[in-house]
């Protein structure tokens, strides 16, 4: 393990930014943390997490897929991609770090999504351990330890120092390029911090929350539950939950007339929206009940069924904090769980 005095943090960021684009959580004018490209004077946010998840780095809200030029009856196709630049994301929390492995199972499955893969290959993830998990946090329900985050490099910030440990070759390469700033460190302060964090975790209101009852052969039983009607009754179909969610990855593909041609892009979409499944001959999910049910069925039942029991949720708590009607996956799971016993 290595460390760096917090007094040198600005120089540390500057040294990373010399080699690659560096992004880190910074407080915006409204006092909310959001990832920003580092520039001289940028101050690392002290917030627990960013409002939007870190999925944007690999699966941006919109991205160009392909360009077309149409002339008479002919069409010309161009690949708009340029060489992806190397980048480093600093300050990713354990929950978001896990979300990347969930997104990998979708985008890196055959056929591999080259847009996503290029970003994964060029991005280095530097995670930061949590010290003050909040009452909306439930990452531990999915076996995530916020005091021991994954990533290419894991960091722990104490009152005086930043402790760092490389976990992958990419992480080792990053730290060795910064070796002049780092010194070997004893792990004791990190262990002490981890123990303190784990004590807080035990006392969180969602500490005992589990999705275990959704693990077995319950697809039809959960789907047919009468509880969906009541659970979805107030859902506005706004899609906020899907947009702030680090694992939601449904997308739309659309064409845009640029005036010089046609640009085909993809953008985030939401199963909560009424036209998501609408076709010329009708819509298989006619009411908000079906759309609402789809989102939770996918995270709790369908995704695990295809991925060795891994749930499509990392317990980051963003949907708990942001849903305008205070509905969320915890309430849904707790309500349905009673029916499964």
């Amino acid at each position, binding site marked *: 393990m290595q460390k760096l005095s917090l007094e040198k943090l600005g120089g540390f960021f500057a040294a990373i930014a010399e080699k690659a684009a560096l992004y880190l959580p910074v407080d915006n004018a409204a006092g909310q943390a959001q990832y920003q490209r580092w520039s001289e004077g940028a101050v690392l946010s002290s917030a627990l997490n960013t409002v939007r998840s870190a999925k944007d780095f690999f699966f941006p809200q919109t991205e160009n897929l*392909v360009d077309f030029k*149409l002339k008479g009856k002919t069409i010309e196709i161009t690949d708009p991609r340029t060489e992806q630049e190397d980048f480093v994301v600093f300050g990713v929390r354990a929950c978001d770090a896990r979300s990347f492995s969930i997104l990998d199972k979708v985008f890196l499955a055959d056929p591999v999504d080259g847009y996503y893969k290029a970003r994964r290959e060029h991005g280095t993830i530097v995670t930061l351990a949590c010290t003050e998990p909040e009452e909306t946090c439930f990452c531990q329900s999915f076996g995530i330890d916020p005091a021991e985050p994954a990533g290419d490099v894991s960091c722990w910030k104490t009152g005086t120092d930043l402790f760092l440990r490389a976990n992958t070759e990419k992480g080792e390469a990053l730290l060795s390029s910064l070796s002049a700033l780092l010194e070997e460190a004893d792990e004791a302060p990190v262990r002490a911090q981890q123990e303190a964090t784990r004590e807080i975790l035990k006392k969180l209101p969602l500490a005992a929350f589990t999705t275990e009852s959704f693990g077995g052969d319950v697809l039809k039983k959960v789907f047919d539950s009468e509880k969906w009607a009541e659970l979805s009754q107030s859902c506005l179909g706004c899609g906020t939950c899907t947009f702030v969610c680090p694992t939601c990855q*449904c997308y739309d593909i659309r*064409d845009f007339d640029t005036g010089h041609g046609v640009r085909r892009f993809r953008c985030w979409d939401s*199963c909560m929206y009424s036209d*998501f499944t609408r076709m010329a001959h009708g819509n298989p999910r006619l009411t908000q009940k079906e759309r609402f049910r789809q989102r939770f069925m996918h995270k709790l039942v*369908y995704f695990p069924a295809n991925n060795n029991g891994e749930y499509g949720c990392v317990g980051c708590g963003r949907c708990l904090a942001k849903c305008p009607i205070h509905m969320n996956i915890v309430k849904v799971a707790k309500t349905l769980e009673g029916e499964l016993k």
Partner: protein
Amino acid sequence: MSQEALIPLLGVVTDIRIDTPDVKTFRVVGLDGKKVFEHVPGQCAMLSIPGVGEAMFSITSSPTNTEYMEFSIKKCGCLTSWLHQMDVGQQITIRGPYGNGFPVETALRGKDLLFIAGGIGLAPLRSVINYVRDKRENYGNIQIIYGSRSMDDLVDYKEILDEWMRDESITVNLTIDREQEGWDGHVGFVPNYVKELSPDLGKTVLMCGPPIMIKFTLAGLKELGFSDTQVYTTMELRMKCGVGKCGRCNIGNKYVCKDGPVFRFDQLGELPDEY
């Protein structure tokens, strides 16, 4: 950079056949005049006119056709309306093939086959029908029951008359919903006609048509004694990516574009009823 699934290839429309008042069949080849890719009967392709839209269509020609691919397309939305007004020589984008297709070389080989189609539902089955006709020795008895609203709505009617009905090794039973001048064949809905014909229970059924036809025909087949494991169908849901990632065609833990579109009814029975 390697070929991306979402970046299409170019094709050109070399022939347009008017099948019915709202169905046209488009013949497509690559810019080099050859087939754009090979496929299995029942597989689909994403066709697009940039700026208008992109959508999934079943490939209606048989893979045994070495020269071109065909798509029978009903006019019902933005893209299909555009396709219906275009002329021969128009370039389109194409990507695929997508989906599993019918198990013509495994589960269906050596079997007696019963095709049941309604309206435009013949499009995906035509690929299989012409495939098994071209490899006739690999399959048993072949029967086709096909119905439509009227005589004018029978897709591929010319091919049915000139080729299928003249082929002594297969049986073709046509029906239309209502009496019509010039029609001396059977009149009535497909589900009832299937029950009347009471096909042999040893047959494997491949069925495609409007949801209401599927529902009543399946019920009729079960009354006759057929089981879910003997009946295949092919589904359509809204799709964007075609490769199991965009999330639209998700039913239970399956993606219709990747795990389907062909399912046996016992497989569908394990999925939520949401299609």
